[in-house]
């Protein structure tokens, strides 16, 4: 059996990893970007949701709670950061307080048992910076935060370690079918015969589906803008703060990030169907984020903003996930996976692979699957003694390159060995360049290290895609 998975975001990566448990001839994971997790995976709120925001009976609700319950052990297995922060949905008037009850009911029906309604006093005791005009709030202890691109990379690394071929910067240009069954996938350069295809192409899942003549999912992009605050803001909130939701979106949140910052957002603005490129921030969007955030936490110091950024999510006209079999034999979908796509991903990948694909293709487990990976520890997170021990084995783990996040030369070299070839590749694997100076202090050193390790000239290193050149050339040739 030859299987192609299209899309190396968190969904596709986890699916590829699940497939690697089984005896198959080949598994190929295709990704149009030069690196893993650069689509929807890299620009979202990084929340592992509690499962009370989704209408019971929906596919989203079916997979959100199981996904949440799998996260902690999955992250431990893959050495991915995970923090159970809990969450509040804050209500500021009678109507919103009533809406909390609806969420609690939905949560209960979806299998969430830990939801509580807290009084104003309880909320302020737990979260002193919350707007004192809060009337009541729904508390969920199961909500968590993680690092989505790290999860995607860890899944790809284990998949690759178990025999999956990873094809980066190789977009699928066509899919061949014969007698209503998939038989090959095409890229710009090659044709790969396959027996099954999994469509996990995120923002482009509709285009992939159209290649086999399907009009489901029907997607349009929805932009979400965010503002990231300096780590100096840490502690202003302890848990994820939601406003009361509306029909369209969960609202503009204030939440801690896994690396110690504070994230505000997102907005939710529908884009023209064809607008699938990199999302841009807008004046209105940034304003909306700051206003929405201040509504929840009035004393937010927004002068501590480090950056504003935007991401696109794949909304579907069906307003639900599109997962499972399709009318085309061998063509499976894991699409329209906007929120809570990140949360549901482990559950969906397990169900889709074990209960659907493996059944359809009569796959047997290999028994030799190696599920975990260990990454080089982040020196910044170790005790002084542990750090010292690591450094004595490798002095490069004591040379700090990124001053803001204390990322060492050793970690950067490790990231290069794990596949980073671009500045963003280093950034997402190590957090170097993600800090308050946004790379002003470390970019030159990181470029030099990349050039040295990859045996190229510094001018050949790019930011992300091949067109994103950084240096125009040498001053003295």
């Amino acid at each position, binding site marked *: 059996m030859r299987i192609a998975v299209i899309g190396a975001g968190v969904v596709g990566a986890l699916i590829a990893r699940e497939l690697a448990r089984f005896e198959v001839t080949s598994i190929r994971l295709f990704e149009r970007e030069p690196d893993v997790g650069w689509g929807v995976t890299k620009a979202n709120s990084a929340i592992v949701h509690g499962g009370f925001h989704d209408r019971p009976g929906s596919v989203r609700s079916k997979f959100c709670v199981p996904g949440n319950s799998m996260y902690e052990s999955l992250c431990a297995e893959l050495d991915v950061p995970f923090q159970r922060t809990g969450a509040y949905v804050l209500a500021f008037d009678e109507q919103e307080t009533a809406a909390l009850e609806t969420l609690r009911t939905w949560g209960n029906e979806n299998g969430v048992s830990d939801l509580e309604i807290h009084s104003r006093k309880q909320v302020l005791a737990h979260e002193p910076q919350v707007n004192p005009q809060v009337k009541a709030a729904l508390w969920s202890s199961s909500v968590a935060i993680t690092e989505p691109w790290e999860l995607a990379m860890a899944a790809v690394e284990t998949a690759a370690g178990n025999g999956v071929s990873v094809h980066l910067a190789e977009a699928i240009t066509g899919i061949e079918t014969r007698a209503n069954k998939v038989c090959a996938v095409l890229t710009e350069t090659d044709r790969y015969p396959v027996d099954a295809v999994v469509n996990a192409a995120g923002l482009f899942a509709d285009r992939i589906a159209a290649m086999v003549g399907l009009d489901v999912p029907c997607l349009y992009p929805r932009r979400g803008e965010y503002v990231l605050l300096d780590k100096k803001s840490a502690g202003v909130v302890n848990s994820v703060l939601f406003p009361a939701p509306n029909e369209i979106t969960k609202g503009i949140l204030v939440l801690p990030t896994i690396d110690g910052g504070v994230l505000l957002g997102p907005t939710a603005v529908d884009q023209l169907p064809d607008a699938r490129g990199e999302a841009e921030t807008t004046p209105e969007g940034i304003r909306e984020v700051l206003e929405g955030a201040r509504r929840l936490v009035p004393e937010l110091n927004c002068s501590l903003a480090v950056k504003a950024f935007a991401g696109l999510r794949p909304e579907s006209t069906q307003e639900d996930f599109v997962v499972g079999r399709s009318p085309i034999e061998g063509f499976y979908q894991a699409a329209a996976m906007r929120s809570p796509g990140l949360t549901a991903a482990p559950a969906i990948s397990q169900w889709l692979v074990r209960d659907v694909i493996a059944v359809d293709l009569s796959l047997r487990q290999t028994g030799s699957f190696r599920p975990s990976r260990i990454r080089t520890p982040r020196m910044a997170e170790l005790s002084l003694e542990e750090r010292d021990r690591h450094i004595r084995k490798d002095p490069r783990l004591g040379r700090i390159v990124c001053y803001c996040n204390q990322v060492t030369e050793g970690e950067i070299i490790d990231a290069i060995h794990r596949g980073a070839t671009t500045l963003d590749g280093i950034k997402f694997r190590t957090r170097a360049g993600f800090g308050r*100076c946004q790379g*002003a202090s470390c970019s030159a050193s990181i470029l030099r290290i990349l050039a040295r390790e990859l045996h190229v000239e510094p001018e050949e290193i790019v930011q992300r895609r091949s067109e*994103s050149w950084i240096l125009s050339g040498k001053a003295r040739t």
Partner: protein
Amino acid sequence: MDSFREGANVNHKNADVVVIGGGAAGVAAGAAAAKEGARTVLIERENAPGGVLDQCIHPGFGLHRYKEELTGPEFAHRLIAEIHETDAEILSSHYVLGIDPIKRVVSTVGPDGIVETHAKSVILATGARERPFSALMIPGPRPAGIFAAGLAQKFVNIHGVLPGRRAIVLGSGDIGLIMARRLHLEGVEVVAVVEMKAFPGGLMRNVVQCLEDFGIPLFLRRTVVAIHGEDRLEGVTLADVDEAGRPIRGTEERIDVDTLVVSVGLIPETELISSFVELEPINGGPPVNSRMQTPAPWLFAAGNNVAVFDLVDWVAVAGERAGRFAAQYARGDLTARVPIRLIRGENVLHMVPSSLDRETITTLFLRVPRPLLNVEVVIGGVSCHRQLGARPSEMIEIPISAKLLSGLSQASEARVEVREG
């Protein structure tokens, strides 16, 4: 991080004075402390001291200190020669993880492991960092091609590589002006320097010698309001702004460039002490007295991390002062003095120090918020200094002599004003 436990593995050091940062302030401080007899350790995160001076290859340094106009590396070389003449220890490639304010231990990490240095007094000389373009939250995409001016300077001057072919410089502070010239001389087409305020942020000398000399236009009350380009910068949109910095509709113009060099302000680096020292809101750094001592008596601070200075000569003076007094403190010789708290009056933006005392000779540095003519500096009602004019880009330095100090009344506060005559 379980910091500051007596770990079995980590190296422990003892020092009288620990200086954090090996730039101009730190090297001057280290040399002065060592000359005063203190066992001094200077900690520098790069592999050699010099700090930002190494990449400032243009002249403009040392006119006051060495009576010669030197380039940054030459100034650094002389300062470093001074510290090499002492027995101060320089701990290079070491990054400070934290300062324990109770045990007075400075924890560092380097390629040889963790070091915990026990100090009697500490001097913070960590300088300032550049405000990143992303912090302005200008809407649009985030392509490659947008460089902090200091990063562009490092690329060109240290690594010998160019950031692009056609550039606009945002911000007319000295770093922006210097880089406009540097890039032009390296064959980059520098289309313009744009400045949000109504006057240039840097020295007039730099406006003349970096822009006018090369026909590079300077647009005042104009700024970047949008970015274009998905992977690499393709252009920017400029617009005029009002006094409040708000874009004026109808004045937008798109310019095609592949490089944006950004010089939009320096921020004192105070991370290591902000949890136990309250920072001065206008300076952005810790308040210091005339001995460069912060409210934590064992902690001194000098240089750009107190307030952004203009001339490195003054930074070195402040560093020396901090070094001398930190050494005296470590010896137990520094008697507390009754402070005269300085209050900002008219036309005073940055002000260092924040207090004087009747016994300590020092220098008062002031920065004015806008260009002024016929200025008179008045401290506690006493006229102390006059000069023909003052600009925000050039600090006013007022020697605080014994005579001046004796002239101040017995009050515990004094108002500092810069009057325009």
